[in-house]
């Protein structure tokens, strides 16, 4: 089981080199990292995988960038938007993660999108950045969104991944801190362990074993 931080931004997007981030991740208890716009490599025993984050771009552009990301063998994350956009993204082949869900409104991710995420094995990203960096209303809104996502996750069992979205080694947190911060959202330790190891599973296209009553 690989413990993975599913999104970090090394230089030039951040202030830390990918090697330093890998070294720090090793000390913090991670086995692998998904680093945005970085070629795959291994440093200090930490596997670094290429990540692509597709922002708020038109549908055709998303499709093109997903295809490019897939050709590069990258972990493809797409920024969530309104409900229509999320349905479009979740139906797209090659998308691994839907991220930035904390910035969307309550109706952007519902039971239909949850079912699509489960069927297509697309993970929903729980970014700890708004929990760490946010204060007051912005953090409360993010926590509220995550509680809602967790409710749907418990019902539909779509995969979750947890990421720090660190742009610096100072933004990275240890596995224990991930677990503590995730407990604020309502994730318990087995959920966190599963979420930290989900990147490998969604990349291989396997879905978790589901018990159908």
């Amino acid at each position, binding site marked *: 089981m690989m413990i993975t931080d599913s999104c970090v931004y090394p*230089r*030039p997007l951040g*202030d*830390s*080199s990918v*090697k*330093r981030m890998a*070294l*720090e991740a090793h000390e913090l208890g991670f086995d692998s990292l998904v680093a945005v716009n970085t070629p795959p490599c291994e440093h*200090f025993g930490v596997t670094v995988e290429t990540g692509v984050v597709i922002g708020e771009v038109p549908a055709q552009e998303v499709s093109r960038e997903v295809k490019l990301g897939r050709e590069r063998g990258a972990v493809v994350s797409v920024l969530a938007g309104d409900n229509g956009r999320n349905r479009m993204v979740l139906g797209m082949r090659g998308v691994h993660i839907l991220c930035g869900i904390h910035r969307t409104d309550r109706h952007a991710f519902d039971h239909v999108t949850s079912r699509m995420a489960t069927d297509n094995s697309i993970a929903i990203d729980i970014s700890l950045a708004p*929990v*760490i*960096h946010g*204060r*007051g209303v912005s*953090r409360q809104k993010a926590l509220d969104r995550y509680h809602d996502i967790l409710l749907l996750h418990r019902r539909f069992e779509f995969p979750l991944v947890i990421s720090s979205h660190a742009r*610096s*080694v*100072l*933004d*990275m*947190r*240890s596995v*224990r*801190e991930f677990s*503590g*911060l995730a*407990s*604020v959202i309502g994730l318990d330790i087995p959920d966190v362990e599963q979420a930290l190891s989900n990147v490998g599973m969604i990349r291989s296209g396997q879905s978790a074993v589901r018990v159908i009553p």
Partner: protein
Amino acid sequence: MTPRPPTLREKRRYVLARIDPHGTAPDPKELYYAVHEVVTSLWGDAAGALIHVAVIAVEGEYAIVRCRRGTERELVIALSTVISCGGRHIALRTVAASGTIESLRERIAALQEPVPVPDVPAECTIDGTTCAVCWCAGQKIDVIEKGFKNTTRFFLTREDLENS
């Protein structure tokens, strides 16, 4: 005023946290306010009062933070949300928790054993920017962009420096 007998005193726990980046050495008062702010903003006033947080000491790169026994988990979670102190970007990495300050001081002494400083140049060029090496230990090297203002700290490794 007579001191309260030990059996009537509240049990406390002390958390040792390392202050990153190295060489930051924040003002203890500023760190006290930063820790108070994160505890209050994450857990609220009522829980904050129960945690009874205080920064006891800042010794070099380490800080000792007090809390009420049984609230260490809440304190550690709140400490992981500290992102700045005195306008500088920092991170607090929890190292240990103990019932006495003395044992944490022993731990600090053990952790502060001198690390052999690798042979690195005082200056380097990163992507065309001249930077001064400000800290290095083992593979880790921190450099600061040279200039009068808006200087940025970069976190690199020895290999990055050799390849630049």
